[in-house]
């Protein structure tokens, strides 16, 4: 179930019922890795983040999605301890970031948005340097560097200077640097920005693979379609948390249910009237000749009664399937409904 936050803008109050803002137990995941409770951040008297609350469970791929300037990076920085919250409370592994000990920091991997590593060092030297920040000895660094470079596909380029690497290789090296000390919790700030779609797919493949190893990932992105790859997504706009949930929940939240696309022969307007009487059907719309889009409460339960109702009018149904609107559309709806 999607969670909608902000008392004055609660979409859930209209479509899914009000869900209280604030802490929420994640019963489908492990322990809580990250917890934000009514967190705000002002920089130079400008509110960047406004009363955000959410939790991230261990082993989860958690996405922070929003347009540029929506507060994603500031939120990540608040969680990592780069910033202190102006109001509210942040906890990571149950500890406020300002009280992090070195052992806590060693469990965190951070890939900043803007850090470009050192152009005059080679791939392996850059990696070795970042590993040394986490106190890894020479032998451990050497062993681990091989693993992570293999993981990101840079092993054969390890002697190349950073300045000679392509943008994609540099981003992959940054990911390798984030992983080199085997952190439990990863914060990746717009890791796929500027990448071609093929490389983006590979990156998300890496992220899913890491999650399958039990790592927790908090990933920010302004490429809204990437929300599909996350277990849960928080949608930010203008420093506020607009919506939070699984991709499916967010889609339902944006459209008010699931969407079916039905193709049939010789369809007349009567069909639309007939569908009005089918339980779980919220609305129906003809988008082309012989093609309908039907909004239902639950696609898995609604397909048989919808097909029966259409065929009872003597029309042969060629196909019916759940239509998944692109996440760009979902995001636009959520933001506009909340704005």
């Amino acid at each position, binding site marked *: 179930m999607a969670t909608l936050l902000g008392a004055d803008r609660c979409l859930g109050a209209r479509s899914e019922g009000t869900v209280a803002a604030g802490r929420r137990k994640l019963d489908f995941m492990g322990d809580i890795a990250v917890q934000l409770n009514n967190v705000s951040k002002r920089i130079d008297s400008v509110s960047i983040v406004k009363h955000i609350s959410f939790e991230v469970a261990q082993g989860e791929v958690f996405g922070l999605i929003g347009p540029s300037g929506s507060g994603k990076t500031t939120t990540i920085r608040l969680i990592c301890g780069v910033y202190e919250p102006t109001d509210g409370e942040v906890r990571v592994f149950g500890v406020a970031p300002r009280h992090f000990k070195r052992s806590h920091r*060693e469990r965190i991997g951070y890939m900043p948005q*803007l850090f470009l590593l050192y152009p005059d060092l080679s791939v392996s030297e850059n990696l070795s340097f970042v590993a040394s*920040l986490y106190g890894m000895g020479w032998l451990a660094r050497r062993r681990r560097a091989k693993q992570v470079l293999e993981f990101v596909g840079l092993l054969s380029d390890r002697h190349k200077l950073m300045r000679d690497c392509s943008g994609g290789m540099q981003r992959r090296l940054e990911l390798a640097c984030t992983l080199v000390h085997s952190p439990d919790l990863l914060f990746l700030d717009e890791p796929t920005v500027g990448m071609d779609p093929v490389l983006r797919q590979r990156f998300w493949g890496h992220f899913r693979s890491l999650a399958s190893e039990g790592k927790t990932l908090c990933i920010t992105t302004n490429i809204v379609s990437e929300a599909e790859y996350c277990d849960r997504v928080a949608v930010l706009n203008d420093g506020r948390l607009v919506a939070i949930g699984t991709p499916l929940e967010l889609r339902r939240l944006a459209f008010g249910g699931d969407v079916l696309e039905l193709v049939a022969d010789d369809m007349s307007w009567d069909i639309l009237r007939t569908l009005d009487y089918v339980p779980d059907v919220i609305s129906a719309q003809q988008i082309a000749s012989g093609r309908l889009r039907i909004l239902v409460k639950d696609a898995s339960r609604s397909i048989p009664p919808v097909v029966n109702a259409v065929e009872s009018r003597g029309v042969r149904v060629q196909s019916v399937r759940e239509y998944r609107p692109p996440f760009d559309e979902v995001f636009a709806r959520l933001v506009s409904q909340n704005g």
Partner: protein
Amino acid sequence: MAKTITRTLGFFGKELGEVFRQPSLVLGAVLGPFLIMLLFGLGYTGSRPPIRVELVVPPGSDAAISLSQYMSSLQGPMRIVAVSPDEQTARRALVNESADAVVVLPADVGSFVRNGTPAPVRVLYRQIDPVDENYLNYVVRLYLADINRQAATVLAQEGVGLAHDLRNSLEQARGDLDRLKVGIARGDQASAVPALEDLDAQVEAIDARFGTALQAAPALIGNESSAANRRPSGTLVGTLRQRLALLREAIISGAASTQQAVLLAALEGDLASLIDLADRVAALPVETVISPYTAEMTNLAPTPPTYVGFYGPHVLALMVQHIAITFVALSLVRERGLGAMELFRVSPVSPAEILTGKLLAYGLLAILVAGGLTWLMVVAFGSPLLSQPLYFGAGLLLLTAASLSYGLLISMVSHSERQAVQLSMLVLIGSVFFGGLLAPLSSFTWPTRAVAFGLPVTYGIEAFRSILLPVDGLRWLPLAALLAMTVTSGGVSLLLFRREFERG
């Protein structure tokens, strides 16, 4: 502890790796200063081009013509490029820069001298460089001193000629005295009296012509001779005349012959003294009379002064400071620019570990560069810097440490690489002007000297100079000052960095 060492060494290795990936930077840092010193040593002669002078000699003035001839014959920093009778023409040479100075000789030297005032030699020039103006003043004074000395020499030569004349007159007086003695010895008053008259006339003539010169003569020859010579010569002539008067009375009154003999012996002694005096004055070398003093220079420094030997350690101190300050200042600012600070703040690394790693790397680099420069200076120029290896090492180490701390301070107040470079260059320029490289500290006023005392290079130069020219042993104050600078600026930098690191 092991992890702290790993993190610190991580920065150490990263910084060195970045620097050595740019070998031209390291080569430039070592070879650059050395080549500059080499070029300086080979190219700097320490001498200035001669001052081009146009002489203005007023027509018809013999004194001025001979003065100009004399000036033209002088060897030195002035070269007469033209002689003109007209001042306006000479002034044009100044304007079109074909001459550096115009020297206008006085038209009537004699009238000035007769009036008891020195004749003015006017010097005209167009100069905006105060150092060049001072130099011209100095050279003109040197030339005038030489001209005046030459004039005095001519006068002295005349004086020596006078001494010869005096000698001749005194010999004639002695001849008269001999005749007088013979006359008195024979009791022949008729021959004695004319001889006495001749002697009296001769002495009177000597007094009239040489009296003034005789008064000055003892000052020329000194007072080292007999008791008679210690008497003023002017008094001697007076005594001579008194005795002659007494002798005249004795002869006329027919006094006892013993009394006349005593007076004659005294007169003989007086004449002998005067002849001796005249001989000694005539024998004086004129040059010695005019220039009785000459300078004998002895340099007690352990090594002979050379430009490279003296300025080499200055350049070394300046380079160590510049490399240390610039590398460290740029390094931290670059980390900020790359966004690395954000990663550091999330990672377990501490501000002290970051700074220690960087300082060790750049400290080692600065010392390697300094070592290379020192080796080149010792081998190529025979610099005695390594004659005190422990002191030199301590000075170099502390200068490096203080400079690194200054670099950190600059990086703390700089918001961009450009600003860090600007501040580093300001420190470099300040060091060149006030650090003792161009001019000794004592030539600055106190408020300006305070700027010099705020620069590590001042103490570095002071320490290295202590090796070149030890005064009561090696000086430890510069080393203490460098240590104090390291502790204060390093401490402040660490506090500022901690604050920046923890701010959120």
